[in-house]
């Protein structure tokens, strides 16, 4: 039986893990490769690197990080952040990434999803959606004469959450699937960093909209949150960053809890 996946995410900036300072027993707490090794030992099912290096001339740095990671860790690796062309995707895949996660560029140029999935296969094209509850409740939207489908409760944001894309998250997820995305990485901007649990309503809405796997992200604070999003939220995988970084909870603890509750976990 296919298991639910638990995925730690590493924010990487200039070849360093940004949140990794509290790690114990690591030769180099900020080294992405050492961190990846540690997560592998803990039983992570996959890894996600989010490249938050701001300047484009430093883009090559992440390729080196990916290369070194792929030499040391034998598990699936997804890389996201600043990917905007087929060339970027090819470079990352050649360096050792198994999947790439595309956010802003996919919104600005949806054709990129189609081209990339035809060229490299859907299985390696992840569309990342940052979603936020729209300010106007549905009733107001209706009064303005807009249909709720056109402007559902969750809006898509791009540029690291700074810009509203003017897209409905539900519709965008469906479109991304149609264009050839193999997976959706769904982040709730409302819940991210709150530690109050994943956004179950959002996750349910998106998992109900598509037939490709959905990774839920944003809000994990305790092991029960993972259980909730993987059962009630119907997510196929759950991602967390700071929770695992600061060892508030280990992947092992999460998984043994899931198994105890009857959720299939490795």
């Amino acid at each position, binding site marked *: *039986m*296919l*298991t*639910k*996946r638990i995925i730690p995410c590493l924010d990487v900036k200039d070849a360093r893990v940004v949140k990794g300072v509290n790690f114990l027993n690591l030769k180099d707490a900020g080294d992405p490769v050492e961190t990846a090794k540690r997560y*592998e030992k803990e039983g992570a*099912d996959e890894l996600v690197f989010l490249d938050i290096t701001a300047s484009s001339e430093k883009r090559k740095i992440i390729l080196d990080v990916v*290369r070194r990671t*792929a*030499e040391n860790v*034998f*598990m*699936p690796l997804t890389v996201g952040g600043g990917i905007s062309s087929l060339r970027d995707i090819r470079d990352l*895949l*050649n*360096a*050792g*990434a*198994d999947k790439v996660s595309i956010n802003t560029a996919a919104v600005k140029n949806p054709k990129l999803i189609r081209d990339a999935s*035809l*060229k*490299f*296969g*859907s*299985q*390696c094209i992840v569309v990342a959606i940052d979603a936020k509850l729209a300010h106007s409740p549905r009733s107001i939207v209706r009064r303005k004469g807009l249909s709720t489908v056109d402007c559902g409760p969750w809006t898509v944001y791009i540029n690291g959450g700074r810009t509203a894309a003017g897209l409905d998250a539900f519709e965008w997820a469906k479109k991304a699937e149609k264009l050839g995305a*193999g*997976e959706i990485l769904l982040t709730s901007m409302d819940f991210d960093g709150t530690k109050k649990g994943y956004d179950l309503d959002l996750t349910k809405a998106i998992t109900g909209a598509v*037939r*490709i*796997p959905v990774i839920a992200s944003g809000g994990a604070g305790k092991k029960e949150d993972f259980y909730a999003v993987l059962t009630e939220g119907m997510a*196929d*995988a759950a991602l967390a960053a700071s929770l695992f970084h600061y060892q508030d909870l280990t992947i092992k603890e999460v998984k043994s809890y899931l198994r105890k509750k009857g959720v299939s976990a*490795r």
Partner: protein
Amino acid sequence: MIAVIDYGMGNLRSVAKALESAGANEVRVSSDAGIIRGADKIVLPGVGAIKEAMRELKRLNLIKTIHENIFKKPFLGICLGLQLLFERSEEGGSARGLGVFKGTVRRFPDRLKVPHMGWNQIKVKRQNAKGKTKERGILKNIPDNSFFYFCHSYYADPEDKNIIAAVTDYGLEFASAIRKDNLFACQFHPEKSQNLGLRLLKNFVELK
């Protein structure tokens, strides 16, 4: 020397690095027919679309080389490298494969989430009365129900069921590993399956 066939499809570096980590002395990622012919063992990896893969193999003049060497020395197909061994695929309407084995590569039905992505178990076919696997070669010391990493939308449906070495349940049961003589191919990615994946690759490296 182990030759990893490079035909521009997917993450060959991971496969090569995993083989090295599993103890291989010399791994060469190559599209050169001479190197492939001269290798002790051959790996056909690959992810992506089968049509594109066949087009590239043809362009690189590797189809004949593969056919000539496939049963001569230990051969390992991974993911698309398993699917390519069959006659045809439903991918993109229909496509032709290498035709080493009779059978069709089919798409998972719509009721299932596609791609089949993540960790799933394999059921090893050859078992003794106690449910222990009787595998020697490449599946040696791989316990029944071991987890491996999968990532695919199509699966092979061989005509000759005797070549099926292991099956996996994803709402339907499909052949997740096949074998014939010195040929072994798996739908999962041993190079991405942590310890058990490396053990399988070590078994391959140690094959005589």
